[in-house]
């Protein structure tokens, strides 16, 4: 029973940050109607900024996270407004966000390597305590990760459903033409939404940095997992990403319990295949 509970708790914890990652990608799709294959690289950038602020500048953990996320938010907005928005209209790029974001991703990886070097960087755990009770083991770091992740999820839901700005984002996602007629500056919405989406990836990057370490290529596996969450939850659906993220975390956790660590990724991606077969639009996606 404790093994089951331990797996479940571990699964929910990892699920929470999978959800945060997935939302960023799904919002990019839903609002800007584009795939961002550099999503994982913004996760990486967030981790590096956190490292810079906490290790090099010596700021405490919380301000470092805030600065890291803010930094990525600004970089994201700049890239969207400066490069992506212009490039998508040009014939030369073939209107392909895939190519443009691929280029941005490579650029970010190389820039990271130049600035911070290819060595792995580490940051200390926010808290070294390990709790043990009733046969369950829980590291304080993991709980903090889950707490921040869930808080972020709630904040995003509130932003989208309750704020005027969140409405504007939904409207732009559903009908850009109409949104413009309502007085919504959709170019600005695109810019800010992209910034927000990659900032979410940065949140995950900051809180996971102590556990997984930092290197310029760490975005790769994160990109894949984000896609899985996005597709299973339904492209464009925030609620779907949350459910799918937690589902992925739990499935991964239990599958490693019973099948061993080697099968972890196989089972996760099988989930995608099953979803494509049974319900291609994802859990909360719309049928087209």
């Amino acid at each position, binding site marked *: 029973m404790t093994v089951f509970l331990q797996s479940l708790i571990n699964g929910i914890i990892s699920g929470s940050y999978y959800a945060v990652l997935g939302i960023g990608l799904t919002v990019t799709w839903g609002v800007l109607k584009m795939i961002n294959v550099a999503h994982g690289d913004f996760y990486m950038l967030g981790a590096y900024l956190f490292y810079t602020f906490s290790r090099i500048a010596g700021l405490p953990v919380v301000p470092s996270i805030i600065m890291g996320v803010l930094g990525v938010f600004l970089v994201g907005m700049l890239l969207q407004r400066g490069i992506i928005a212009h490039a998508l209209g040009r014939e030369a790029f073939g209107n392909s966000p895939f190519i443009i974001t691929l280029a941005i991703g490579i*650029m970010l990886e190389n820039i990271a390597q130049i600035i911070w070097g290819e060595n*792995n960087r580490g940051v200390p755990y926010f808290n070294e305590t390990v709790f*043990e009770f009733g046969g369950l*083991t829980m590291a304080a770091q993991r709980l903090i990760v889950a707490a921040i992740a869930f808080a972020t999820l709630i904040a995003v839901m509130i932003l989208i459903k309750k704020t005027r700005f969140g409405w504007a984002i939904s409207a732009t996602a559903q009908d850009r033409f109409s949104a413009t007629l309502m007085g919504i500056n959709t170019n600005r919405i695109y810019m800010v939404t992209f910034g927000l989406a990659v900032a979410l990836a940065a949140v995950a990057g900051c809180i996971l940095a102590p*556990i997984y370490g930092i290197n310029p290529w760490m975005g790769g596996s994160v990109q894949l997992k984000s896609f899985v969450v996005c597709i299973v939850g339904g492209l464009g659906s925030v609620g779907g990403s949350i459910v799918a993220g937690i589902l992925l975390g739990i499935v991964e956790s239990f599958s490693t319990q019973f099948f061993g660590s080697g099968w972890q990724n196989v089972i996760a991606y099988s989930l995608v295949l099953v979803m494509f077969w049974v319900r291609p639009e994802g859990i909360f996606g719309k049928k087209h």
Partner: protein
Amino acid sequence: MKKKFIALIMTFCMIGCLTGCGKAAGSESSAKEQGTTGEDVIRIGVSGPTTGSSAEAGVHVNTGIQMAVDEVNTAGGIEVDGVTKKVEVIYYDTGSNAQTGLSNCEKLITSDKVDFLFCESFNSAVGIATMELARKYDIPMATLEPVSSAISDKIAEDLDTYKHFFKFGWDSGAYGETCSETVLELVEEGSLSLPNKTIAVCADETDYGRSNIESVVSHLSEAGYTVVSENYWEFGSTDLYSVITDIKNSGADMIFSCSTTPATGVALIKQLKENGLSTMPHMAIYFPFQPEFVEQIGSDAEKLLCTPMSVDTDNSESDKAFAEQIKAYNGDDITFDHMDGYSCTKVVLESFKKAASLDADKWTQAMLSEEGYDTPKGHIVFEASNHTTITGDGYVPVKAAQIQSGVNYCVWPESSKTGEFIPFE
């Protein structure tokens, strides 16, 4: 129009950045001097990882190689076939990818026309692939750090193809021997308690990881130990939660781990601690000696048993001297990778000197000389049957150490001991 112009500028900036970055990443991709012809230089080719998960090690090996070459050149060079020649090195990056390694080596042999090739400086998996080129090309070749027994086996099975091929890395069997001998001795002494004789093993999912673990397992199985948990993680991964959960659930008495990625090592130790396993007996192969690991792990690696302890700057005068040499050369702190790169290159160049020729047969004869070569790494002699470095007392020692208050103390073999083992709680 203005928008088009801006987009164009952005594109060029991006492209410029990408190409510039590409060059920076493989910064040591060409140490070739322009304008030298093939005749008045001895050309050495090196293919190894300077980017990716093994980047740290690969870069350090190359530093060691270059230091040895610079030393020889400063002393005037080497006389071969009546002419004194300087030595020049060409480095290519593999990113730990076998395909890249193969194309690097082909280029080094056919286009750069090297006189000697280190077909792989670090990753066993790539070395196993690139050694196949000995079938196609008959030039002096060697693998530098790769340790996988598969390489030695291939050489032994086909000495005709591999007659000019050498493996500087000792055989993974050496790790198995060191680990099991160390542990069995400690158990006999009473300082280590493994009541159920059960072990958990885990490593990189690479030839290096697998072959080392295999030899540990086979040596300990002979002594009656059983494996209750065996896991391999993706090379470079730091997400080890599932592995550790498995180890925890297995209830093993002791862990044996192996990785060449310091970040993985750090994650392993930290995540073991997260799961309340920090006092579990643990012996680790390779990563505890990487400075990046030492730097990041702080006091969490206390009492960790580890091998190979090849650099002992606290108790070995020669190691201390070598450390100063490296520090003076480019400011690096000494690592085994520096030592290996330097020592192996020295042997290759000494052999050319001894042979007084670039002829492959003469060079091979010199390499196989029974008196061997003295290097910082140890006394290098090759086993004739498989052209692999012999390990043990008087040759290249594979020592085991324990980390105590941040310092490595050798606890095995008896003859090299510099400290007493402190029991795990």
